[in-house]
């Protein structure tokens, strides 16, 4: 019950922010940041540092994510220890940032982390976004629909129109993002149509999100009014 009250007051304290910045919000903010930083400090120790260096999740002794991934990949649990050593050494190099004179050595682990991730994303982007989009963008402008073996005009025109609008959206949008040519004349006009399509996309994304944001506030109100204050049945 006490814990519910604490949660209730914190909820109200944060909500008071929409009225104006005030001491209660400032207090909640400081507690919030302190608790969160402490929480991440502990959890990163138990969930990243310890398990990655020992391959086990700290106290429970369950397999860590990477050990699990390795297990899925190879079916065995053994993971060569010298990888752990490399990780530990790079970790120590990172820590050397705190020493002003040799702080530059921290760029080595940074290069390692950023380089490996960037290499991975290079391929990932190509595979999931560029190549996949090409396949999806090849659409027939005339798409006849057959119902019971005979051509159905209404359905065919509907489907074709859909495809034409889609292809137009793709091509004009690509023109808008083309940087080698100034947006003038026919090219500029096409880019303008591209902007219109982009605006429709942004409007749709905005409209679609309203519902999920309202859901979140409904959830908080439900907590305040039902769980805490018992005003709802």
């Amino acid at each position: 019950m006490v814990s519910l009250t604490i949660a209730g007051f914190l909820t109200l304290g944060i909500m008071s922010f929409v009225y104006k910045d005030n001491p209660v919000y400032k207090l909640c903010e400081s507690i919030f940041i302190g608790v969160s930083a402490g929480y991440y400090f502990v959890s990163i120790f138990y969930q990243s540092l310890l398990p990655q260096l020992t391959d086990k999740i700290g106290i429970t002794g369950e397999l860590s994510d990477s050990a699990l991934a390795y297990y899925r990949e190879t079916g065995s649990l053994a993971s060569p220890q010298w990888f752990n050593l490399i990780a530990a050494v790079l970790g120590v190099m990172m820590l050397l940032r705190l020493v002003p004179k040799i702080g530059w050595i921290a760029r080595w682990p940074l290069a390692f982390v950023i380089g490996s991730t960037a290499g991975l994303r290079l391929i990932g982007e190509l595979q999931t976004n560029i190549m996949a989009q090409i396949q999806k963008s090849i659409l027939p402008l005339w798409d006849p629909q057959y119902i019971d073996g005979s051509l159905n005009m209404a359905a065919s025109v509907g489907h074709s129109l859909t495809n034409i609008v889609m292809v137009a959206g793709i091509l004009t949008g690509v023109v808008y993002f083309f940087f080698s040519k100034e947006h003038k004349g026919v090219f500029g006009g096409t880019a303008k149509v591209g902007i219109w399509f982009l605006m429709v996309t942004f409007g749709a994304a905005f409209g679609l999100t309203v519902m999920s944001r309202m859901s979140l506030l409904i959830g908080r109100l439900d907590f305040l009014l039902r769980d805490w204050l018992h005003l709802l049945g």
Partner: protein
Amino acid sequence: MRKLFLAALLSTFFLISFSFVSAQTPPAPVTNLTAKDTPSDKGAQVDLSWTASPDEQRAENPVIGYQLLVALSSDSPFVAVGKADAGASGATAKDGLKNDQSYYFKVRAYAADSSFSESEVAGPATPTGQWWNTQPNYIWIFVGMVMLVGFILYNIRKAGKEELYIRPIAGINAIDEGIGRATEMGKPILYICGLGDAAQAATIAAFSVLGRVAQKVAQYQSRLIVPCYDPIVFSICQDVVKGAYLNAGRPEAYNEKDVFFVTQDQFPYMAAVNGIMLREKPATNFYIGQFYAESLMLAETGFQAGSIQIAGTDQLIQMSFFIVACDFTLIGEEMYAASAYLSKEPEQIGSIKGQDWGKVVFASLSLLGVVSALLEHKIGFFEMLKKVLLAE
């Protein structure tokens, strides 16, 4: 009555004898069994293929499944290494196989009553891991990579020799105006690198825009506040801002405490940034990088604080919030182009040109596809014409 009894007796006898007989007729074995090392794999797997037993179709006691058997030589005892359902004409044997060891295989066809028959021995097959994936989709991705990387590298080289044209990017002016406004008003600039990690392209773009902003701020002697979400991004931001002050010739003006870490937790981080906005009242806010749900909260609080806001992200949904609530938004690729443009290095300009070539290929492939799909449907097209013209 007696007739009935006799009939019952007879039918019982027939039923018994029938099932007895069928139990003694095991199904026909699979034929044409072949065993081959699985292509494009990490090894320790062998692909088996066969022609299914014709008795899968028979009404009585059909084949219900297959068992894969393996042995080290064709005459040593075979052990099970997996199974396949009826209807399958192949399977991959992998349980316990080792690389660079020859194996022999047999397939057992099982009938519903557990009777079975074995195929001829296939093999030897030696599983090995391959060093290059030759599956078609991997080849296509490789071709795509070589082409795009080629475009970009070619243009980067070309940019080193001659000047390439890039149309003016509207965001550049907005960025400079934002810095100017802060200087005039004597208020700080707030720079948010987003919630992405340091290797995300959007964050990398944020670093280069930050470098530019910090250098101008150092020249104009205003103040730059950079609260960070990711600890690695925080480390790099410190280096970037410090380096920019050094470049501007004012290393002593760099205040380490203005580039700081908050917490790696979306909403506590937001709580802190909200507080900074309302208390410091920055003249200009930059939001460049990867953003999630917090985008709208940033933009609305910044508006309330009276700041000019310039945003750039590659997150589709968040673009819509930035467009609605910020003064200027760099949409997706515009952000990358702006960051390259700001560096003023010819190589960077060349890379934008390379990207454009990629888009031309994308657009022409898509157009080509449309045309070929149209030709394929030409019969339908003519039918439509006929319908319209002859009013059928």
